[in-house]
């Protein structure tokens, strides 16, 4: 209730908001092209009707008479960032304004990124303005290879925008995991297996101690759902041998729910990933031997993985706190390098929704939550931008600290008063 009140207020104040209505009222969103993410495919001259936070209908033909309309060149579901640090770091370079990780903490798997989430963080609006309505937010591993617990949020910037706390555990293997574990891959794997052991023998192990082989009592408790297969584990890894080792581990522990982050050399094991139904979250810009774990990196990685049948989500791993929004550009480049357009769109919508179990998101379908974006062109094209963004049917303000700075300085004339009086 409070939230919807605040939302209506925000809509009223938004200078560039294309939607004329508040949350509860129905809106018809018309697109020359409507990408649905369902069997309906891409509609020409499509109409998406939303009401009361849900999508009512998706089709072609005339919009319901008398209903407020938003018109756009393209209409898509709200985009989903499958891996970000958006909202947990205001300024990554400033320790006081960065809650992504904690090198000095005695805890690891128990660190809950949602405890550091700030819906007021400026990157939230900046990310929303580019069409992202949902974000998966992961902590960063600083002390151990167990980074902690990630969460799912919307980008409304309002209190209560975290809609799934402890949505996944994040674990770092490969070179980074090795260095976080004392210096080698064997040490990382020993830590991971030891942690599994701690969880499995939890009762006996922690009866009289607070420490296990690897994890403290609190960490073991937090890691338990992941070990039992009740919670998704995101694992960062790049090199072919690391990916194979993860798949071997999954074979030994079939109950595990795993998705791999990075997978720069994933194309070399694409068939096995596909057979094991392990999704990957890739940064399709990776095409350099930036480390000895990325020698076979290629801009065709996403395309080859998808062709083999691996579910592929596309993200920006380079600056995941402030530039998660660049995933559209990265996906566009993946298309230029062989990924079908439709698959690239799914990498920003349905695949992340599936990986994180976000039901009724990532698609334009009757009954789905009304996360809808209206665009002035092809959503993957670098010259396109959203003209309206709806989250749960609420038309979001198309304003950020960046647009305010822009508007202040568009004219540098300060003859009468300093520019600080322009706001």
């Amino acid at each position, binding site marked *: 209730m409070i939230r919807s009140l605040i939302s209506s207020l925000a809509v009223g104040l938004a200078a560039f908001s294309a939607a004329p209505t508040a949350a509860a009222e129905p809106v018809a969103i018309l697109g020359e092209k409507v990408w649905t993410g369902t069997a309906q495919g891409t509609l020409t001259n499509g109409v998406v009707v939303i009401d009361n936070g849900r999508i009512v209908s998706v089709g072609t033909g005339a919009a319901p008479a008398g209903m407020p309309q938003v018109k756009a060149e393209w209409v898509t579901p709200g985009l989903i960032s499958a891996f970000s640090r958006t909202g947990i770091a205001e300024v*990554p370079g400033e320790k006081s304004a960065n809650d992504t990780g904690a090198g000095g903490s005695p805890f690891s798997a128990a660190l809950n990124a949602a405890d550091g989430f700030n819906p007021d963080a400026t990157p939230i609006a900046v990310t929303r303005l580019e069409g992202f309505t949902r974000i998966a937010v992961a902590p960063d591993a600083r002390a151990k290879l167990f980074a902690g617990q990630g969460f799912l949020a919307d980008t409304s910037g309002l209190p209560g925008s975290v809609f799934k706390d402890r949505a996944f555990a994040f674990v770092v293997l490969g070179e980074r995991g090795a260095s976080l574990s004392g210096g080698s891959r064997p040490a990382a794997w020993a830590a991971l297996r030891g942690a599994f052991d701690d969880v499995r023998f939890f009762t006996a192990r922690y009866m009289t101690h607070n420490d296990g082989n690897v994890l403290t009592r609190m960490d073991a408790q937090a890691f338990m759902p992941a070990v039992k297969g009740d919670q998704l584990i995101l694992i960062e890894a790049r090199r072919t041998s690391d990916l194979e080792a993860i798949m071997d581990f999954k074979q030994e522990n079939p109950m595990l729910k795993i998705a791999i982050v990075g997978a720069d050399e994933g194309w070399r094991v694409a068939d096995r990933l596909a057979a094991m139904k392990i999704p990957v979250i890739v940064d399709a810009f990776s095409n350099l*031997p930036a480390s000895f774990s990325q020698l076979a990196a290629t801009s065709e990685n996403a395309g080859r993985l998808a062709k083999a049948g691996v579910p592929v989500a596309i993200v920006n791993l380079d600056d995941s706190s402030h*530039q998660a929004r660049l995933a559209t550009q990265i996906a566009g480049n993946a298309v230029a390098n062989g990924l079908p357009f439709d698959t690239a769109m799914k990498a920003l919508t349905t695949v992340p929704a599936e990986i994180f179990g976000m039901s009724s998101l990532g698609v334009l379908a009757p009954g789905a939550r009304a996360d809808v974006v209206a665009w002035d062109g092809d959503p993957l094209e670098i010259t396109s931008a959203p003209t309206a963004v709806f989250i749960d049917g609420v038309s979001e303000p198309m304003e950020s600290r960046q647009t305010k700075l822009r508007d202040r300085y568009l004219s540098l004339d300060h003859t009468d008063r300093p520019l600080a009086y322009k706001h």
Partner: protein
Amino acid sequence: MKKLLLSAGLGVCLALGACGGSGDGKKKDDVPRVFDPFPSTYAAYPSAPTLITNATVLDGKGGLIEGGSVLIEGGKIMAVGTDLTAPEGAVTVNAAGKWVTPGIIDNHSHLGASPSPGVDAHGDGNEVSGPVTAEVWVEHSVWPQDPGFTRALAGGITSLQILPGSANLFGGRGVVLKNVPARSVQEMKFPGAPHTLKMACGENPKRVYGYGRGAFPGGAPYSRMGNVAGYRTAWIEATDYKKKWDKFLDGEGEQPARNLELETLAGALNGDILVHMHCYRADEMAVILDLSKEFGYKVASFHHAVEAYKIADKLAEYGTCSSMWADWWGFKMEAYDGIRENIPMVHNAGACAIVHSDSDIGIQRLNQEAAKAWSDGKRAGIDIPIEVAWQWLSLNPAKSLGIEDKTGSLEPGKMADVVVWSANPFSVYAQAEQVYIDGALMYDRNDPAIQPVMDFELGQPGEGDKK
């Protein structure tokens, strides 16, 4: 006269790279001033006369020609127009539906100096040992086998400036390269390009020397005011050094002892070495503009310049460039006020705008970075024709590097540094199909034989793969 002599000392020697010799130090021709002992040995690769036809041509100086042709002969642009005929024996490239532009010039790269793979042993990008290291030359760090050069080539980069890092107030000399695979950096050095000097404002120097690195209470600078005092102290020393050499070159007194640090700074003071300054905040750039006037040098370009939009009028009036990202922001305090319209707003104020990368990923698609900024400007009411915006990618960076008389636009007589794009290069789906450097086809997306593979990648997974 004195001025002439000085440029003979620091300028001509740089250009010709053959200024050795010894003498009594009294005659200008005999002065032992080996100012560029590492001269360019770059030579253009063989090229056939080539006529690229039926393309949308952006000439790089603001023109767009539909159904345009570009004629290349002897490694130079011979003609650009709509009605060109191929000379006998010329290769004809039918570029129907494609776009042709000048090669992209990135004036801010660390390729070779901070190469792939980024292992400890490759950390050659920054001589962090002191706040003033004007004596180092980044070319001595450049590893020509960096695979990053080949990825940049596939993105249409034909020339680039390699800079030392930004830890120091004075980071050392930069170097301008032709993006041609080579065995040594000398074989890449852009013939006749002036040397450059990297300086840095703001957070980096004060973090590295003041309170970082466990050196508390450590050395100077600790603060932005310490940064400025550091520049001024060094410039004062350099001014004295330059005076001594001026005198000597005028035939007075003994030959002064050479000092590598001050030699670089003196070269910047007399205009032979171009100053490139890493600076994010508007207020700091304003201080640097005055500082440069105090000592009589000129800033060729502010790099990163995340807040250039706030003082675009002052930058235009002074006549310097800003080398900018399209949308990087917020990763540190001095980048907090980054906006997507920075580049078009700087351009719109009449200042020189440049799209730069500072990244081995970003350098691969500077055309896309320009496109983002261009479209964001358009949405904010700044409508710049695409053919004018292309100056951010070629001609303006060439100006900032002092090579605009040689490359940066498709004009007769200039180096034939040319890119054929599969489509409008302001689209995410466009790719560089052919890249010519001095008329030689150095990259062809459709021909694996014309795609370089660096030594490091031989015998490794992914060798010769599509990158």
